[in-house]
């Protein structure tokens, strides 16, 4: 399971992580090694068709529809690195625009 530099870069773009030129070879090598190691689970044929297991309650519980927000000890203006007139500020959107839903 060898991961190419290009694949690492593609994944890094999806994850919005900057990967430097220098870090790339070691990262690709380590990822390859880890993926090779974890891929051994594909050697277990018995797992085909098994229903996935997730711990915790069997079914979702619901809360009542009432306005009852969890209080904040201080507001977004204190949290935010950039905030103005009630808005969070980020640098202008470059390559992408319009929300995806």
């Amino acid at each position, binding site marked *: 399971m060898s*991961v190419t530099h290009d*694949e*690492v870069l593609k*994944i*890094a773009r*999806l*994850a*919005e*992580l*900057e*990967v*430097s030129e220098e870090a790339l070879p070691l*990262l690709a090598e*380590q*990822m390859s*090694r*880890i*993926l090779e*190691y*974890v*891929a*051994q*689970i*594909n050697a*277990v044929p*018995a*797992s*085909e*068709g*098994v*229903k*996935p*297991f*997730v*711990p*915790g*309650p069997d079914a*979702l*519980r619901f*809360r009542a529809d009432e306005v009852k927000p*969890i*209080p*904040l*000890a*201080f*507001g*977004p203006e*204190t*949290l*935010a*690195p*950039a905030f103005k007139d009630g808005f*969070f500020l*980020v*640098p*202008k*959107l*470059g*390559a*992408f625009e319009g929300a995806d839903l």
Partner: protein
Amino acid sequence: MSDQSEALASAKAAADRLVKAKRLNACLTPVRELRKALVTQAQAAHPSGVLYGMPVAVKDNICTLEFTTTCGSKILEAYRSPYEATAVAKLKAAGALIAGKTNCDEFAMGSSTEHSAYGRTLHPFDKTRVPGGSSGGSAALVAAGAVPAALGSETGGSVRQPASLCGVVGIKPTYGRVSRWGLVAFGSSLDQIGVLGRSVHDAARVLAVISGRDPKDSTCEDRDPLRLPNVPESLQGFVIGIPKEYFPADLDPAVRRGCDRAVRLFKELGAAVREVALPHTAYAVPTYYILAPAEASSNLARYDGARYGPRFDGTADVRALYRTTRGEGFGAEVRRRILLGTYVLSSGYYDAYYRKAQQMRALIAQDFRNAFDRGVDLLFTPTTPSPAFKAGEKLNDPVAMYLSDIFTVTANLAGLPAISIPIGRIKGLPIGGQFIGQAFLEDEMLEAAYALERVVPATEEA
């Protein structure tokens, strides 16, 4: 107004002990701030609470109002949470004093507390070694006697493994026993807050307080808090299973000797001991290192520099902001796991990795059910394959580091409760033995741990 002198004295003593333990780099809260906060809390503490005046340190990935919550990461440098974790609120309501925030591997990703942006934590007995991780700061503080108990968190053994390496007790409750509200998520389906204590009782009474239902966490079971069992006279009637997969041929002989001694002891206490098979054990670490990074890659997407935390330049456009903030704010291990998790979820790989790992998880959980269905009450295993290793030893070999969780990840995958207690030493370094219990039967597991703790020569060479 009641007399708070008892809590105040406890607060001051804890502050003094925490100052002494400073060299370990186990506590991230500055000493002066900590002393002040302890005194303030002592003045407000409820004398009727079951933990009145008890200082409890809290891992830095659990939200507190009193202190910063950095998760050992630069990306949350100086971050203050505007709300607190349910576990912390319950501790305070029981009269406990939050004794600062403890160092940990960044976002709980690691097994040595070397992956902290705030420097590594030293092993309390040997500064060249690691205390284990990711809750290494909590384990070191308890081992150094600075606090009787501390909260940690577990995703793949992050409470039990450092407890084992530091010679203290570490409990991971059943998944859903303790609310995760305010525990910064790493692998949501695996994460649980756990407790480290200098004795089974210290750990167990803290666990009892933080356990129980919470409408803020959909994965928390709708159950009453844990009720502590009495210390049993014997283990008559207990059937303890020994899974052979946890005693491979290449296991450190001293670890094996320590476990054998423990097994002899609980036979003497009247327990029946039976060998059992958990055939999918070998696949637990690979399964874990698919599922945990996958969940982590999504859980850590929120750290983008837009709403909180520092920004690391990237003013050109919002993508540049994301990439520099995340690229520089996260450390190497976190970046590696995010990439890994993104990879296994990405189109074309999901089935071979994520879906397959979910199925493997089911087989691993089924192994445990089979053992318990055959009349076994508890399983006993070593907690770690070896005692504390040298700092730096496994830093550049992620797979070797991952394998230090080999005996602990299974309980997280299966959602089961487990406890590590000290069972001896190897050349002065502690080793732990682990009980894995049945879901929501922590009381049985604690009974066995109480009984073994009373008789095991925990500080003697194995």
